[in-house]
């Protein structure tokens, strides 16, 4: 098709003023609206956990061990008689804390190194790209087990592990965006007018990055939840008696034959949360860039 009339000129720069329109587009897709609703619910549950939970999540009651779901304990009790529902609710808190801290840390590290790589001399760029590839080459779960063994299991270790494993994604996005902008006409023009690169990055880089980074965070949260629950399942993540979906899964796994309801219910929020965040990420990406919405999934 040569007809130039069919080629629609398009702008690559979403401005902050468009955020209202983006939010409207997001909410107008069923997947976006439902996943956004569920995520807000998760955050509400996490924030108000002490108010929502019917029981103390770590109070043990040996006489009520491994009870099936009942009117008192809606989702039953675990091997120490603790209320499964209350533990799930506090587990939500753990999951979101780890998810936000981990992706936040990864974003900061990736952002800084990505800027250095994109703006710095060629050799630094090559070195950082190589370092990035090397970090990705380390097998996540085994590497995490090694780190936990050296430094001991704690929230800090968990945060470092997640930051290290997720930072390469942010590094790549930021670096590529910086490289694109470095050669973009309007940036070159502004530089010729004497604008400093710091000012440049603030005015051009950040608005261009917000969209892709938000999408990346939404897509990474399921992965982080997977890592946290995986490590906790192996007993190397969140430590008992603290409630986490992974530790509950691990306890439920130990009593799979006697009390299957523990593992079954502990897995459910992991499934729902990962699905919700994935759909939300997709809907967010389509809302930010409606052109390719149908062609890209």
């Amino acid at each position, binding site marked *: 098709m040569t007809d130039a009339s069919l080629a629609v000129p398009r702008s690559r720069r979403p401005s902050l003023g468009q955020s209202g329109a983006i939010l409207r587009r997001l909410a107008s897709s069923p*997947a976006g609206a439902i996943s956004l609703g569920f995520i807000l619910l998760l955050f509400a549950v996490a924030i108000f956990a002490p108010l929502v939970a019917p029981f103390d999540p770590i109070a043990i009651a040996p006489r009520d061990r491994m009870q099936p779901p009942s009117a008192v304990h809606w989702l039953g009790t675990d091997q120490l008689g603790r209320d499964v529902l209350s533990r799930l609710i506090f587990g939500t808190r753990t999951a979101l804390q780890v998810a936000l801290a981990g992706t936040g840390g990864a974003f900061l590290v990736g952002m800084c190194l990505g800027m250095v790589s994109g703006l710095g001399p060629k050799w630094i760029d090559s070195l950082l790209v*190589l*370092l990035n*590839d*090397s*970090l*990705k*080459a*380390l*097998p*996540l*779960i*085994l*590497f995490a*087990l*090694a*780190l*936990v*063994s*050296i430094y001991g299991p704690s929230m800090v270790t968990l945060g470092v592990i997640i930051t290290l494993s997720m930072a390469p994604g942010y590094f790549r996005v930021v670096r590529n965006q910086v490289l694109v902008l470095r050669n973009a006409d309007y940036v070159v023009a502004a530089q010729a007018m004497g604008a400093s690169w710091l000012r440049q990055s603030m005015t051009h880089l950040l608005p261009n990055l917000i969209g892709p980074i938000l999408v990346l965070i939404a*897509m990474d949260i*399921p*992965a982080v*939840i*997977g890592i946290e*629950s*995986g490590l906790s*399942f*192996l007993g*190397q993540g969140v430590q008992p008696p603290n409630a986490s979906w992974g530790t509950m*899964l691990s306890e*439920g*796994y130990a009593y*799979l*034959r006697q009390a*299957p309801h523990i*593992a*079954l219910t502990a*897995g459910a929020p*992991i*499934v729902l949360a*990962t*699905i919700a*965040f*994935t*759909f939300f990420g*997709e809907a967010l990406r389509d809302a930010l860039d409606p052109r390719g919405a*149908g*062609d*890209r*999934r």
Partner: protein
Amino acid sequence: MGSYLVRRFVLALLVLCLALLILFLLIYAVPGDPATIALGPRASEAQKLLFRERMGLDDPLVVQAVRYIGLMLRGDMGTDILSQRPVADLVLAALPRTVLLALVGLGWAVALGLPLGVVSALNPNSWIDRVVGVISTSVVALPSFLMAIYGLMLFSVTLGWFPAIGAGEPGDFGDQVRHLVLPALAVGIAWVGYIARLVRVSMLEVLGENHVKTYRAFGVSNLRIALRFVLPIAVVPVLSVLGVGMGNLLSGAVLVEVVFSRPGLGSLAYDAVVSRNFPVLFGSVVVTTALYVTANFLTDTAIALLDPRIVEEG
């Protein structure tokens, strides 16, 4: 072609060395006694002494790092502090089982995800495309160990269709296959969605290219164009993403092994964590890293065979 592969090989080696350096720094450059950290709390004084001598812990850090990387590349990963056997023997015995699980898991995911992606791309925005889209988006982020636990509960504990733990009787092929089914399903399920999505996007992009029009202008059927002339181009980016995703695949296989108590790298490393047998743990990290780098190099080779342009552009 030759020079391209040589370059990729050198790069792969460089990545492996740098990854080993990261590992080295985490063990040796932290405050505390490196021998205790590297061998774990259960190592005897004699073992630590031997270790200090072997690694030359009094040398400057740079010398130590080079020595460490050299030892690892030669496959000398120390000795198991409990059984006194070389770590390399233990790890290499476990490796094929993990590779088998990962490959079978990925294999069925490709066998299902690829056709789904192709069908979606050939009928964009049709009901089948939407169904495939929703399903693949739903499964793409599910943690494989969770699928393993659910699979175990449903198909072994409740239905009794498949055995729950172990890898099957040695020598009994049928038994081994039955033991492989559930773990492989768990390892692969997220990849079905991932591959279907990647193939769809990549196919749609290539289908929009000009040469497709040429073939249609010569009356070649759309299906034939898609399978013989579009798919070979469309799988190239899919392959490179899969190469990078190999790490996730191995991590998934490791956790699934623990769930099913299947012998392999995952069980080996997990047992090493539980028994504080650190040389075995670090050894499995090193070997898995090497496995990842090798898999990536093989992916690069496959890409070079599929797309002659890449070789010349470098």
